[in-house]
């Protein structure tokens, strides 16, 4: 079961994890990303490409489901203006065994960061705004999955 959601609304990560747990299997892994409280950061604005986003996330989830035996995958990503400590993203995977659940969760996040059409803008206390730049470490992490698992 694959669940994809892109929304301005906040989500209840506990309830979402429970839904994956209820599918059975002995292992549930999850990752929650939130707005990091960098000094002088007021908010993040998350933009996306509505016509493409959900399909891009679904393709990542389908890839994970091919690589590992999973009972369920949930990917939730928020868009719009988010404050420090607000939740941005949840990835949750359920499997019979922990290696599959943890690896799939990590794979989905690595792919999401490099191919899903989201862009973050940082809003600072002095009113200035900066678009977040891509990080080589994210590209390296996504590339490492090639040929693995």
């Amino acid at each position, binding site marked *: 079961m694959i669940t994809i959601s892109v929304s301005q609304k906040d989500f209840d990560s506990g309830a979402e994890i429970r839904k994956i747990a209820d599918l059975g299997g002995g292992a549930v892994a999850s990752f929650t990303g939130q707005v990091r409280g960098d000094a002088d950061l007021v908010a993040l604005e*998350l933009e996306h*490409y509505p016509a*493409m986003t959900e399909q891009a996330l679904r393709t990542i989830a389908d890839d994970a489901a091919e690589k590992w035996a999973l009972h369920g995958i949930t990917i939730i990503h928020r868009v719009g203006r988010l404050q420090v400590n607000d939740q941005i993203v949840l990835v949750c995977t359920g499997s019979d065994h922990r290696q599959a659940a943890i690896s799939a969760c990590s794979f989905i996040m690595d792919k999401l*960061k490099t*191919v899903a*059409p989201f*862009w*973050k803008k940082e809003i600072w206390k002095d009113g200035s705004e900066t678009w977040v*730049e891509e990080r080589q470490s994210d590209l390296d992490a996504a590339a490492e999955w090639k040929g693995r698992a």
Partner: protein
Amino acid sequence: MAGELDIVYFAWVKERLGRPEDRIAVPDGVSTVGGLIDYLCQQDASYDQVFADRSRLRFALDQQLVHADAKLDNSRELAIFPPVTGG
């Protein structure tokens, strides 16, 4: 030829161009994403400024990520944006 093509922009590409989208008639002889970018830059200096550093641009044709050498073929929508930074 591809005929009419919608181009959509995101993040700083959209901000610097000052608009979210364009509709253009693809001229004869332009067959790839990169070729189209070259053509647009020749047409209008505003494109040239924003698209100056091609290494900072990413592309999607009909909502699929592609490289600059991708054929336009009969695509309906080209998206031009910076490297993605979600998660």
